[in-house]
């Protein structure tokens, strides 16, 4: 999380060994991405902010298979995992399409499928939903949410509602880590939000403006509103 130019994408590149730090050290799963890039890269998958030039193969299915090919996965397993990954990003039927005929959001889905097929231990997602429509975003977020149980997901986003489920939120501004909080605390901290050009999503913002404390879902909010009304009027609710 953090403003444009805050250094989020730079952090992702550092974690993957694409950039070498001038000072300090990077460790991913105990390996230094600069000295042991392959050890790190076979455990991590990156979804770049702009997927346009990250697609390697002339057909969608071959591109999704690229990461698996590099890891030496046997062909039969590759077929299965490629088909599953393509389905899970909602691109069934696109197997033989050529990347240059796809829209931005479709390319982003192909790149994500390439990552999901590999299922690395660590997923570095740089704004994975920036080009997706609302239903596409929900599907992808659900799929990512399912992975969080068994994998480490670093999810860069400008949408605060996408990180309500996160374990930790890191706020990066001016190339520095300015805060590490849990999502509920971040929503409540108006000064921190303001400082980092963040706008809380509608439901928590409404709850805060009404002085109802922290609410995540519309149901929470509705409950809180009802409780307030009930306390205020003394009337009975069925």
């Amino acid at each position, binding site marked *: 999380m953090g403003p444009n130019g805050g250094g989020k994408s730079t952090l992702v590149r550092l974690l993957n060994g694409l950039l070498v730090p001038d000072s300090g050290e990077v460790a991913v799963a105990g390996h230094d991405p600069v000295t042991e890039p392959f050890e790190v890269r*076979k455990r991590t998958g990156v979804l*770049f902010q702009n997927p346009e030039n*990250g697609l390697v193969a002339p057909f969608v299915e071959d591109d999704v298979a690229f990461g698996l090919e590099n890891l030496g*996965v046997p*062909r039969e397993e590759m077929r299965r995992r490629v088909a599953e990954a393509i389905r899970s990003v909602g691109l069934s039927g696109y197997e033989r399409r050529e990347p240059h005929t796809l829209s931005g959001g479709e390319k982003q889905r192909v790149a994500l499928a390439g990552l999901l097929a590999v299922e690395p231990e660590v997923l570095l997602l740089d704004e994975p939903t920036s080009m997706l429509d609302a239903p596409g975003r929900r599907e992808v977020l659900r799929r990512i949410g399912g992975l969080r149980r068994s994998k480490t997901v670093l999810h860069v986003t400008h949408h605060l509602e996408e990180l309500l489920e996160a374990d930790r939120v890191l706020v990066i501004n001016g190339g520095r880590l300015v805060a590490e909080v849990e999502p509920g605390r971040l929503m409540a901290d108006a000064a921190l939000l303001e400082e980092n050009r963040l706008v809380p999503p509608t439901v928590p913002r409404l709850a805060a403006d009404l002085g109802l404390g922290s609410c995540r879902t519309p149901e929470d909010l509705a409950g809180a509103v009802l409780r307030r009304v009930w306390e205020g009027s003394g009337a009975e609710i069925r």
Partner: protein
Amino acid sequence: MAPGAGRGTGQFYPADSPLHALDPRAKILAVAALVVGLFLVDSVAGFLAVGAALLCLVQVSRVPPSTFLRLLRPVAVIVAFTALFQVAFVREGEVVFGLWVFQAHSEGLRLAAHLALRILLLVAAAALLTATTPPLSLSDGIEDLLSPLKRFRFPAHEIAMMMTIALRFIPTLHEEARKIIMAQAARGADFTEGGLIQRVRALVPVLVPLTVGAFRRADELAEAMESRGYRGGEGRTRYRELSFRGRDATALCIAVLIPVGGILL
């Protein structure tokens, strides 16, 4: 648009034919055999026999003859030119006819006919290969056939990878060139008028951003490939499967017999 039929994906003609179904390696070897064989054929009758066999194959491939002829058109000029060259400069044998300072000798005519037929048949065989083989299978086939040379540090995998990436990015760059041309035209650039030199000069403002853009793409592509664990051909498996079956071996034998027949005639 049918898969693979897009611009820039080469001369592949998607169809459901026995030639399309063959293993690309069998087809590449067959063309190689034909190329070698054609250099040994030494009579017009032999060339015509090979030509007839190729015509049959075109029929089998279900590539419409008009489409196939279009694939040959670019070389027609070269063929005509080299043939004329032979006629004009070979001075052996008796004079068949003369035109002002030119004299056509019998040997020159014979060489010209041989050369023209040889080049045409070579190109026709290659065109049949590219028309019936999807480019990606072609690059897989080339990688496989060249892989014994890896022992001598021959970059077989790298060559195939380059072909794959070219296939992926040629349409993208083509589109980008079109966009730049339209953007420049919208600002008053003129690509359609003036002499050759003026037109070439008008293209400079197109080529510069196109080249810069291609380098940027290459950078991003390299980053993405590395981050996806690419380390060259070592320890890599392949998603696409090529399988050399009985029918491929049979087809290869038949293909070898074609030029042999031509040599004997």
